């Protein structure tokens, strides 16, 4: 049993420090007295100045926004302990009493701001402590019976809940709201506060009827409450008990509020209030409404909702559209209340959770599903128009504003521009040309939203640049200037949008291709594949191998199909073409050299280390060509440029999943000739690797042995049976086999030597451990 007693708090503040850091340090001691111990913290930091400050939980002022009558010690009376109603002068009369002594040390050493900030922090800490301790006293009934284990359990629960809350901050749960506060947005002060009786649960969000300025709430599923601003007590306002359970009340400007029942029935509020106990028909059977939304279409309010039906195998997801005409005649209304099944989505496997959707136009609906994909459906033809995978998961929130989707996934807010074609059968089955419905536009880091104005300025300038009919170089220069100006944390997002805009233009205008600028941007190492997914596609199309090489080296997240496409392009491209391009040869230059006279020059250059110079260094490249002429097993089977390209591919880290994905591609379409060439190159690399004692290739971006082995295994796995049949490939395979076997033998020999060397050393040590001996020495 905890015997906590609460009384006064004394806040002792001290300031001043010479450490240039910001820190708040609070030390607490509890004593059963009235705050009479002045020397409780004398052991700590005696030399510092302190200010002693008494806090009285009963009579000190607290900020108005934190005030709750139930937590005011002046009025609170504990049921279990009988403590409470701390009236003026309680400190002298009340028993038991405990004082919590706090030593608050605030350090903030920034010249000019120190005193002010420290004082401010002291003030804030004081408020927090005051409120906290008031609550601790006011909640005495809740914790009074707790044992220490209970306390720990409670702490654990709260910890978990806090984590959940912090992680899903965007999706607040509606059901838990027990009281509703109407707040003015500007100053966050509640204008009014109402609460239902204890035990009652508000089951759907409170809405405001814009016509009458009344608030409508439903508690305990069936009880409808309607009140106005001036009402104080919720128990005394209008109440109507309905016959069916209400799912949600929707309020629309310039229209009657609509009440949606769990059974799918819909009534306007007026109709419902005329006869609260009227029968409500069930539109849907054994399905559960998951989501609903109301809006005005023309003059008609439209309410749509999503239901979910759990059967043994499938989860059906249906979208109903309920049309409610705005007509006064109630009889007619019932007749025109028509519902039709618009769309039936079936998702196998998992329960639809956290879905949301918006209606785009009269024929299109966008659904953000729990399976982490955004889909756009045509309701007229029931076809999927577009979809986008969101691997990071979504929180199920989707907004639509001005032809743009806004949705969160992971930690990112994504904005997608969409465009709906007029609904036609051709468009629905995807035969219409240029039916680009979804197009990733920009990609914002969640943390950088504050700096939107910068991004906007970037984009506006960039778009201005793009619109003007200037030449490519002008655009490049302008962009470069623009980018040199901004060196901000959200630089990445800005670059991403700029690049994707550029790529879009590249797609539409084949002559436009700001290659140098792109290369420069990629080399800054701030891009990734997901920032500009079309970049590599465009580069592949244009066969810009240098750009691809840099992309492969720089991007951390290249999907398998692009990797595969790169590999194919690299292998199929002719050496003559490659010689005309400038490929970064740094990675291969140090070991594709056989002629001794070239060797010295090259190693020196490599020692020098810079790749940019190497590209211009023509003599080296010609040297490489000569080597290439001598085709032999010992020599590299491909040209140096191609070798460099392939090498950059090999360096990509292959995880297991990626390997499997790549293998599929290989199995499907990879040409046998290419695979043979690639395998020969890998073999060559492996041989080169093994030549060195530490089994790494020279150069910065060189693959490890295991990476080479991974690729080899991948190729062999995919094509082994066919390769064995081909005579030339057979030779390669057998030579590889021999080589690997020799390696294994070599290493086992090395191990043996190592073992015997150790043995020798041991023996030698034994003889040497003799620290003293008498020997005979003859000098002649």
């Amino acid at each position, binding site marked *: 049993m905890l015997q906590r007693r609460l009384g006064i708090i004394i806040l002792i503040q001290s300031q001043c420090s010479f450490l*240039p850091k910001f820190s708040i340090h609070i030390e607490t001691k509890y004593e059963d007295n009235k705050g009479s111990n002045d020397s409780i913290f004398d052991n700590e930091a005696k030399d510092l100045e302190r200010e002693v400050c008494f806090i009285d939980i009963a009579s000190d002022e607290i900020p108005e926004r934190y005030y709750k009558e139930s937590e005011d010690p002046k009025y609170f009376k504990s049921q279990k302990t009988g403590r409470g109603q701390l009236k003026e002068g309680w400190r002298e009369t009340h028993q038991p009493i405990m004082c919590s002594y706090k030593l608050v040390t605030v350090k903030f050493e920034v010249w000019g701001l120190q005193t002010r900030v420290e004082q401010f922090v002291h003030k804030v800490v004081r408020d927090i402590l005051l409120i906290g301790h008031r609550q601790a006293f006011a909640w005495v009934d809740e914790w009074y019976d707790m044992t220490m284990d209970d306390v720990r359990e409670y702490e654990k629960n709260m910890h978990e809940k806090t984590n959940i809350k912090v992680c899903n901050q965007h999706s607040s749960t509606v059901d838990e709201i027990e009281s509703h506060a109407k707040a003015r947005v500007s100053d966050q002060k509640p204008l009014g506060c109402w609460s239902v009786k204890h035990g009652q649960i508000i089951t759907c969000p409170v809405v405001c009827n814009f016509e009458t300025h009344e608030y409508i709430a439903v508690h305990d599923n069936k009880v409808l409450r309607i009140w106005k601003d001036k009402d104080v007590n919720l128990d005394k306002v209008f109440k109507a008990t309905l016959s069916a359970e209400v799912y949600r009340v929707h309020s629309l400007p310039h229209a009657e509020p609509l009440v949606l029942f769990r059974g799918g029935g819909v009534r306007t509020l007026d109709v419902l209030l005329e006869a609260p106990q009227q029968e409500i028909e069930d539109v849907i059977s054994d399905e559960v409404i998951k989501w609903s939304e109301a809006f005005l279409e023309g003059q008609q309010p439209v309410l749509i909702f999503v239901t979910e039906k759990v059967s043994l195998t499938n989860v059906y997801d249906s979208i109903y559209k309920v049309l409610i005409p705005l007509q006064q005649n109630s009889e007619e209304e019932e007749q025109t209340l028509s519902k039709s099944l618009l769309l039936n989505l079936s998702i196998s496997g998992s329960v639809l959770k956290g879905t949301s959707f918006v209606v785009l136009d009269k024929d299109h609906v966008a659904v953000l599903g729990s399976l982490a994909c955004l889909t756009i459906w045509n309701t007229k033809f029931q076809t999927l128009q577009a979809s986008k995978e969101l691997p990071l998961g979504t929180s199920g929130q989707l907004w639509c504003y001005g032809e743009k989707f806004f949705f969160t996934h992971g930690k990112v807010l994504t904005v997608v521009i969409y465009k709906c074609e007029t609904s036609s059968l051709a468009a629905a089955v995807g035969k219409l040309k240029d039916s680009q419905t979804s197009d990733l536009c920009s990609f914002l880091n969640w943390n950088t939203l504050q700096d939107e104005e910068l991004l906007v300025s970037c984009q506006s300038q960039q778009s201005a640049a793009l619109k003007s009919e200037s030449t490519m170089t002008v655009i490049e220069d302008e962009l470069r200037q623009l980018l040199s100006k901004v060196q901000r944390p959200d630089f990445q997002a800005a670059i991403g949008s700029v690049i994707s805009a550029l790529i879009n233009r590249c797609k539409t205008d084949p002559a436009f291709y700001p290659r140098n600028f792109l290369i420069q941007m990629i080399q800054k*190492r701030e891009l990734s594949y997901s920032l500009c997914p079309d970049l590599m596609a465009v580069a592949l199309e244009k066969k810009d191998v240098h750009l691809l090489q840099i992309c492969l080296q720089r991007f951390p997240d290249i999907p398998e199909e692009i990797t595969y496409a790169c590999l194919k392009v690299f292998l199929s491209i002719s050496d003559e073409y490659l010689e005309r391009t400038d490929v970064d040869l740094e990675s291969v230059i140090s070991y594709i050299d056989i002629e001794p006279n070239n060797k010295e020059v090259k190693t*020196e250059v490599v*020692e*020098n*280390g*810079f790749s940019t110079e190497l590209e211009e260094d023509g003599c080296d490249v010609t040297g490489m060509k000569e080597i290439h002429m001598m085709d032999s097993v010992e020599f590299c089977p491909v040209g140096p440029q191609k070798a460099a390209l392939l090498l950059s591919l090999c360096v990509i880290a292959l995880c297991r999943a990626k390997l499997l994905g790549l293998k599929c591609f290989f199995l499907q379409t990879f040409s046998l000739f290419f695979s043979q060439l690639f395998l020969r190159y890998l073999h060559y690399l492996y041989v080169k690797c093994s030549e060195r*004692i*530490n*089994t790494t290739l020279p150069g910065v971006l060189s693959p490890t042995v295991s990476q080479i082995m991974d690729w080899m295994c991948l190729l062999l796995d995919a094509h082994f049976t066919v390769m064995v049949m081909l005579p030339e490939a057979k030779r390669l395979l057998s030579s590889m086999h021999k080589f690997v076997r020799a390696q294994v033998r070599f*290493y086992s020999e*090395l191990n043996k030597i*190592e073992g015997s060397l150790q043995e020798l050393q041991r023996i030698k040590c034994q003889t*040497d451990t*003799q*620290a*003293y*001996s*008498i*020997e*005979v*020495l*003859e*000098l*002649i």
Partner: protein
Amino acid sequence: MGEFEVHRVRFFGLVPAGVRCMAYQHRGCRLALARTDGAVEVYNFAANYFMEKAIPGHQTRSVEALCWAAGERLFGAGLCGDITEYDLERLHPAYAVDGFGGPIWSMAANNDGTQLAIGCEDGSVKLFQVVPGGVQFEKNLDRQKGRVLCLSWHPSGTHLAAGSINFIRVLDVRSGRTAQRIMVNYHVPKSKKRECVVWSIAFLSSGTIISSDSFGRVQFWDWERGTLQDSHTVSTSAALSLAVSEEEDSIVVGTSAGATYQFQLLPVKTGGQEKRWVKTKPFQHHTHDVRAVVHTPTALISGGLDAQLVIRPLMEKVQKKSYDAVLRKFTLPHRRLVSCARKARLLLFQFSQHLELWRLGSTNKTGKDGEVLPLSRMPEHLLQLKSKGPEHIYCSCVSPCGSWIAYSTASRFHLYRVQHEGDNISIKKVPGVPKLLLPAYQLQCASDSGRLFIASDRGSVHVVQLLEPGGCKHLHTLRPPAGTREAVYLLASSADGNWLAAVSGDWEAGLCHHCTVPTYSCAVTALAIHPATNNLFISYSDQQVGLFEFSIPEKQYTAWSRSVQNSGLHRLWLERDSPITHIAFNPKNTSQILLHDVYMLCVLDKSLPLPDNNALLVNQSTLKQLSEPARHRQLHAFKICKKFQPLLFADLLDERCLVTVERPAADINAELPPPVQQKKFGT
């Protein structure tokens, strides 16, 4: 000549302290070296790399940086927060000035040697003026958080580069402001960001700053723009030290993997103007961290935590491709750490803070050459004498009869009387030791154990009489007729007790109250007086001339010595560069003299002819295969044995008995902490 019974002693557990920092004085060709235990040594490169001065360490005085300033003054600074000037004449710290910035991590003197800059723990860089007789605080430069681990002056003296954790600062000396701040880690992706310690820095006159850091990178920065010009990764572990040649066209970098690398500024194309720093030569001489490197005009010098000082001559800078171009390694000090009581067959080992007394074993068998004889008595560790206080021991000695032990630290002199009663041993401190001017630099007992000679500063020697049963009396102090400021560091007394020879730091070998040996411009490494003939034997660090025999009664060089000088010594003998550290005589045969250095033991027989340049100098193994008459034709004066290496001490106990004290490198390595793990065989 005969057979010797050699007592091979390998139980002297000396572990030399690692090299912490070095400073090279270009004008005097001297290298100052500080060890991790606070000891400071000065090597004279002109005198065959002889360790000319040694200032023993101190437990609380660590030295983090050394520099020469104002001519030949040596300053050190360390983690105790003081700047210390070393008195190289009296071989002890002259004074210490508090830097008031916490521990000092780095110190640098400007080109003129008039100012010292120190980098402190609290991030401040302070300037001190070097004034006669001291240093004077001049000013504080801009302080920023983070200890200043290295400092380098711009050759013009206007700017200072300071390396710290994660950044380099360039400070304007006149205004004291930070002129540039370079983040070393800027280009590393955030995910890989670790703390990057800039271990060493160099500021070139062209405005290039070279830094070596804990990522193993050597980076070249443009200080005005703060941009990276060039970056070389030399090691996976830290690059700890860095030094630039005077012409600024070559640098040497030491890494914690024990490797050193040379970088050179070479033209990109032959004949072209554009030059680039290129990693040219890797060396792997050390097993542990290379904490200090120095680039002299002709050699790369590196010192590591494995206590080795390695001098690697640059082949292209050495004129003749001869012995000058040979790699030199110094691990053991050129000082006598072992003293031997011949009669009692005791050995006294001097460690930095304690002494060990051992009794040699014995045998009753005889054997042929190379045989290991069975022991009838094992060697015995008799006693361990711990020195009190933080000071390290300067010198020690045991009397020939083994009953007196004396040692001296910087401030105290101790004399003990050891009593042997059968197998029991008891030790008693001698009371009433005379108050002498300390420290004592060398102790020597007369051969009859009646007197103790204490070498002191200003060329003086104190004579103390040892009284039975455990007392002493200060007899008198011998002072050289011509005053000198240097301390005496070598002593030799004659067997009959009439003569005493002393060598002081300015290389003057004097015979007290008698005469001065003609001065020779080289350091004396060993001297001894022959017990029978009273001839003084002197060996100099300069092997070109090497050995002298000086007849004390006649006050002139002996005829043998003159003939040696006239005919010249053997070529190979002259090319040796390790100094002879001890000379002993065969009591029964006046013509035999025992000499030794680290690598060899030599018995010099004056009665035999000197070898000429065509003869084989090290000829023992060939002689053994020859027949008796053929042998006689081949015999020469130098009988060299290289069996015992590395040799710390060798002495003749009697005419047939030798004692050698070795300290194998493997034993030293076994006591060092494991080095940085390196991959082998692709395992």
